[in-house]
Each structure stands twice: as C-alpha cells, then as structure tokens.
C-alpha cells in the first residue's frame, strides 16, 4: 500500500515537473517583456533620470509633482473626451450594422464580404492613416475642404485639425472608422450563436426591430459588449498613435490632442525626464485599474450580488456545521 502510494506521489511530482517545464517559456517571456519593464518603470519613477548617465533617487517627488502639474488633468480630460466620443459611435455603428445583418426579414447578403471591408481600416498602420488624414483634413490645402468648397457647402475653410474641438472630434472619428469593424465582427459572432428560430419566433409574435434588439440581440451579445467596453476603455486611456502623428506630436491645436500617453511620451523621449514620465505611467496604470474595476462592478452588479449572497450562505452553513460538530463533541 505504502509503495503504491509512494509510486503515485512520485508520478504526480513527475507530472508536475513536466507541467512546469511546458508553462515556463510563457512565464519567462512574460517576466522579461511584461513584469520586468513594469518593475523597472516603478523603480525609475522614484529617480531623476535623463535616459543616460546616473539615476538619482528622489523618493516620491515625481508622484507629488503629478498633483501640481495642470497638464496632467488636461491630458486626462482630452483622453476621456476623444475616447468617449469614439467608443459611443464605434459601438453604435457596430450595433446598427448588427441589426441590419441579423434582420431576418430582409436577410441582407454578403456578410462575409462586408466583414472584410469593415475590418480593413483596422489593418492599416496608424502612421499611414495619420499621414493620409492629415493631408485630407488640412485646413488650407486639404481635399475635404476643397470638395466642400466646390459643393458650395462652406464659405470659409474648416479647421478640422486646427480648431481644438474639431481636432478632437476628427481623431475620434478616425478611431471610430478604424475600430467599428472589429466591434462589428465580435458582436456579429455572438448574435450568430443565437438560433435563427428565436428571432423568427419573436418576429412571428409581432416583436419590432427595436424590441428584438433590446430583448434578444443585446442580451446575447452582453458578454462580448462588456469585453469591447473594457478593452476599449483600457485602449482608449492609452490613446497615442493618431493624436501624436496627425499634428505636431505636441498636442496641437492648443493642447487638445495632448492625451496622457502623448504627454508621457514627450516627457520621456523629447524632454528626457524618464523619472517623471515613469511616475505618470504608473499613475495612469492605477487609474486604468480603478476604472476597469468600477466598470466591471457596475456592469455585473447582479452577478456580484449573487456571488456575495452565495458566499454568505456558504459561510453561514459552515458555521452551522462547526457549531453542530462542537455540540455533538461536547
């Protein structure tokens, strides 16, 4: 018996070692390219460092500076504004298209083709997109204003990238165009998992398009909708490429395109203040984490309540069992 048990333990240990061997490459890569940079950034945030030469330890000075720096609040608000408009229209457009392509009455054909077409902007490099849109939206020489003048729709050139609000909306619009296809594909995949009979039954019962959207489509895509919102939030708060490349890389016009990451980038790589940039990065990391938690809790209130209730019941049951055991032992 003991030999059999000992042999069993040896087999389990061998299986463990094999398991660890298989997962170690992932952890090695994760440590080198994720964990180490995070820890090193945290270390730098407590120093004054120009990117070369010595690192001088200055304690929490960089973090204190964050609360005195008015650019931080401006950059954060810019990020929220640009992201907020983008995520709204991105999801709105994706849902609208889902409604169109899941409509059982009209049975729109060519889903495969449109999926590709809608997703294509996501495949184009941000640098290319920025270059193209910078030329298209140029106030004095851009094609968009040219066309609008020729159509007689405007009397004065529109500063798409020179007026602060318009510049932010332009970037939001570009982001929407880049990402709505991605959202559409994800939503559509969820909707297609719902059987056609469900939609047909609802239609036969007299449900309108918006009733079907509200009661069948959206509940079926809720998990993926939450996923898109959370990843959109995380990605949106790290918005960098388009705002950086489409104008002068310093937030022009009037700092409206100065997002958090643009600000951090310039602080590190233009002004060589790696310490403060690292502190800002960590602060952003904390903010994203808080936002993600708040968002997750807000959108899963029922599930969280049920979980808490089950945990309480479980604890109460265990306590009762312990008390019963004490009474019988006593």
């Amino acid at each position, binding site marked *: 018996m003991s030999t059999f048990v000992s042999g069993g333990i040896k087999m389990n240990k061998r299986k463990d070692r094999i398991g660890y061997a298989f997962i170690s490459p992932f952890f090695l890569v994760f*440590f080198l390219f994720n964990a180490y940079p995070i820890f090193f950034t945290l270390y730098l945030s407590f120093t004054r460092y120009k*990117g070369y030469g010595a690192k001088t330890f200055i304690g929490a000075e960089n973090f204190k500076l964050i609360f005195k720096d008015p650019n931080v609040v401006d950059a954060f608000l810019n990020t929220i504004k640009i992201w907020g408009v983008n995520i709204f229209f991105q999801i709105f457009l994706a849902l609208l298209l889902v409604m169109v392509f899941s409509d059982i009455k009209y049975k729109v054909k060519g889903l495969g083709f449109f999926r590709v077409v809608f997703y294509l902007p996501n495949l184009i490099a941000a640098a290319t997109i920025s270059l193209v849109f910078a030329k298209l939206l*140029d*106030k004095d020489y851009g094609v968009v204003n040219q066309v609008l003048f020729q159509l007689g729709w405007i009397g004065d050139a529109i500063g798409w990238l020179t007026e602060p609000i318009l510049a932010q909306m332009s970037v939001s619009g570009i982001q929407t165009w880049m990402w709505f296809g991605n959202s559409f594909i994800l939503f559509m995949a969820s909707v297609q998992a719902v059987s056609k009979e469900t939609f047909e039954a609802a239609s036969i019962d007299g449900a309108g398009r918006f009733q079907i959207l509200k009661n069948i489509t959206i509940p079926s895509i809720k998990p993926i909708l939450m996923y898109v919102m959370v990843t959109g939030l995380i990605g949106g708060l790290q918005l960098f490429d388009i705002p950086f490349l489409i104008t002068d890389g310093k937030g022009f016009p*009037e*700092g409206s395109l100065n997002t958090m990451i643009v600000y951090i980038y310039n602080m590190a790589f233009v002004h060589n203040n790696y310490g403060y940039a690292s502190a800002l990065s960590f602060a952003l990391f904390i903010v994203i984490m808080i936002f993600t938690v708040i968002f997750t809790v807000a959108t899963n209130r029922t599930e969280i309540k049920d979980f808490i209730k089950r945990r309480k019941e479980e604890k109460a049951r265990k306590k009762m069992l312990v008390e019963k055991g004490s009474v019988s032992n006593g």
Partner: protein
Amino acid sequence: MKKFLTLLVLSLAALLVFTACGNQANEAPSVAVDESKDYSKEKLVIWSFTDELDTAGDIAHFEALYTAPGKPFEGLELEFVAVSIQDGYMDKILPALESGNGPDIFTGELDHIKQFIEAGYYADIESMMEADPEVDLAAEKADYKDYIWQSGIDPANGKLSALSWQVTPGAIFFKVDMAAAVWGNEAGFPAEGSDDYNAAVTNWMNENKFNSLDNLLVAQQDVKAYNPNWRLFPDDQSVRHFAAGTNDPQMWIDADGKLNPAKIKEQIPYINLVKGMYGENIDSSLTANADEWSGPWFDAMDKDLTDAEGNTWQVMAYSMPTWGLKYIIEPNMEKVDAEGNTLDKPGETADQATVDAYAAAAYKGNWGMASGPNSYFWGGTYLGINADSKLPEVSFAFLKSMLFDKERLVARQEADGDMYSVESVMAPAIAGYEGRESLGGMNHLDVFNKEAAKINLTSVTTYDRGLNDLLGVHITNYKQGADGYTSVSDVLEAFYKDVQVTYPEIYVEGLPTE
C-alpha cells in the same frame, strides 16, 4: 518546486532591476594595430542618423584603406546602421549605449553629442590623436574651424570627444525675380542684368530687408501689399532660426545651471514677430500657411500653390542650411531649356529619357541667398568613438580616414559641393569656385563660410531642443489667440509652469514675464 521558482523569479527581478550599467573609465586606448587580434573574426559597428557615410563612399574608402586584403585590419566585417532622427535614432542608441551594447562609432547632431559627452559615452579622441604618429594634433586643431573643435570638447577633461567635418550654416534662399518685382523701385536696388545681379540683390536684401526682426516683418507686409497672393515665407517656422536676433545669443542655462532670464528676454521680439505673422487663413496671414515639410511647402518652391478654395499663392523665400540647398531646394527649382523657356517638371509617369533630359537641363538661376537677422546652423554630423568599444584602434582608423585624410576630404567636397569645417579643404574650394548655377553664379560657399564664422556654437546646451519645444507650444497658442493667452506674459508664465514640471532642476523663481 513552487517555492524554488518563486525565489528564482524574485532574485532575477531584484538582480535585473537594480543592475546599474556604468561606463568604464575613459582611459585613452591604444591606436596601434593589436597583433593579438584576428580581425577577420571581428566586426566594427557604426551607427548614424543619416546614410551619408555609406552614400558618400566613406565606408568604402575605409574598407579600401584598412580592411581589404593586405591591409592592417584585413577581413574585418563592417556593419553600418542608419536610423533617422524621425525614426527614433536617439531612442534606440541611448539604451544601447547605456546597456554597454552600443556601436563602436556613432554620430550625432550637436545637441545629441552634448548628451553623449555628458553621459561619458564618447572616448577621448584627442589622446588617441596624440598617441598616433601619423596624426599631428596641433596641425589638425589649427586646420579645423575653432568653434567646431570647441563644441566637441568634453568639459570634464578638456579633451576632444567628437568632431565634425561639416559646418551647416543657414541662409534665406529667395527668388530674385519676385524680390525685384516687390522692391525693384526702391533706392539702391540693383538694375536687372547688372554684373553679378543675384549677388547684388542679395547684398541689398541683407542691408535693407533681412537684417532685423522688425525688417523681416515689414518685408512680409511689403510682399503682401504688392500682391495679395504673394507671401515671403511658406510658414512661420521659417523665422524660428532668428529667434535670438543676434550673433551672440544668450544660453538657455546660466552659469548657475538655471534657466537664464536674459535668454527669456531675448525671445520676446521673436514671440511678437510670430504673433504678427499669424492669420486664421492665408488671406489674413503673412505666410502661405504651408507647414514645413508638407506637400504644399515643397510645391511652392517652383510652382503656384492652390488652396482648398481654388486661390493660387506664390512664395518667395525659404530658410535653409547648406544641405537644404542641394537636397531640398535645388531639386525643386525651376529649369529652363536652351532658349531660356521654363521647362515643366516631369511627372511620376514620365519616361526615363524625359527625366534624364530634365535633370541635365540648366537651372533658371533666379534664386539668391541672403543672411537673416542672425547666423544660424541646422544639423551637422559629429563623429565619435564609443568609450566602451572593443576595437578602439579600428574605430580610430575609421575616424582618421573620415576626418584627417585631407585628400579624401577635398575630393568629397568637390563631389558634394558642401561646406566643410576644414580650412585647408575650403579655402581653395572657395577661391576656385566658379559660382552656383542655381543661384545665378553666386559663390554660395563664400556666403556660407562668412555665415559660419559668425555662429556661436558654445551657446548650445543639452536643454535647448526641449526648451525651444516647450516655448514653441505656448507661442503657437498665443499666436492663435487660445484661451488664456492674451499677452507675452501669458506665454512666459505658461512656459515657466511647464519648465517647473519638466525640468525642475533648472527652474528658478523670479523669471521675467515681459
């Protein structure tokens, strides 16, 4: 097992996070061929922010002298990496140098090499020169322009750490025919067809129109008044080189290592100039609103610009340095046929014969080059050796082939027509120069040489680029009338807030606000 892995991971984390990379002491390494090395197994790595070392044949020249069969470093492999500044040259090279894995030889512009020198990345090449019997240190020092030599010295030890074969002074290149149209009737303006016409017009412009920031503003107003669709400059970035307005500019950082109040005061006339030049659209602006390096900016060199409304505009002048003439403006200058008729530039689909014929055609020669309110420099490539290089003798040999082979430098200068920082190369080149066809026969080398003599490179600090950037953002907000920017005081106060956050080590209270 779990505990062991956890301990290993944490130990590795601690080791990596707290590893400091320090540079070895900057001892002067030997420049003699190391007989113990097998150079056929070695590799010399060179990084630069342009591909000039390759395209100008410098690497091939070095290989012919040193790595070809029978030469001192026979069989040595050479790896050349070119990363433009826009592609993040500094972002890539600094971590490489910091980690000890940097190239053997690397270049930089002046503010870059100041950082390299401050960090101790560059070796002491002056001691290497002293140690090499083939190099006469005193003679080389006398042959190089003093301000180029001085700008590459490491203040920590007073030794030369980097040197440039180039000088890159700037000028204002302008269309002489447009200038004649605007100011031709003013007193003293040279008569068309007079001797050395372009040079004569240039001198007149130097003395009357481009010699101060106030006159630059008036000149722009003159051009617009003459023809509402003409502009002197394509954009307001054209005047940023004249922000100091003097050939003896203040340094951004004073002797105490703090932001220099005198430099701030020096910027105020420039801030007012930019504000005066701005207009929401081209009609109300004194420039053509064609951003530097944009398509319209290039187009305006040889053709009319057409804006979104269909209006056409012409631009007279561009601020460009030495390399700008050859690589930026001349490729976009008008050309003429044998009868003097302007030729159309071949389109992208033109056949090779048409392209070749256009390339061989003569320039219209309607451009001049003038000085601005102050001399300026833009760019310039310095060369230095990594203090940690395992091949210092090879690296120094490359430096010798680049910087001290005067025969080679003369041939190189004749090929590219550029400005060099070596007197023995430039003096005969200037004296024997017949004049630049594109500039109507002007001796641009002589003009640039005089401009270069006025440049004060010792005023450059490692903070210059960043501080100019920070101030530039607020000047842009002011010129556009952004909220909170109603006066120069607002610009300066916003600038100081940014300096306080970005460069707290140089910030000081009590800086001027007007």
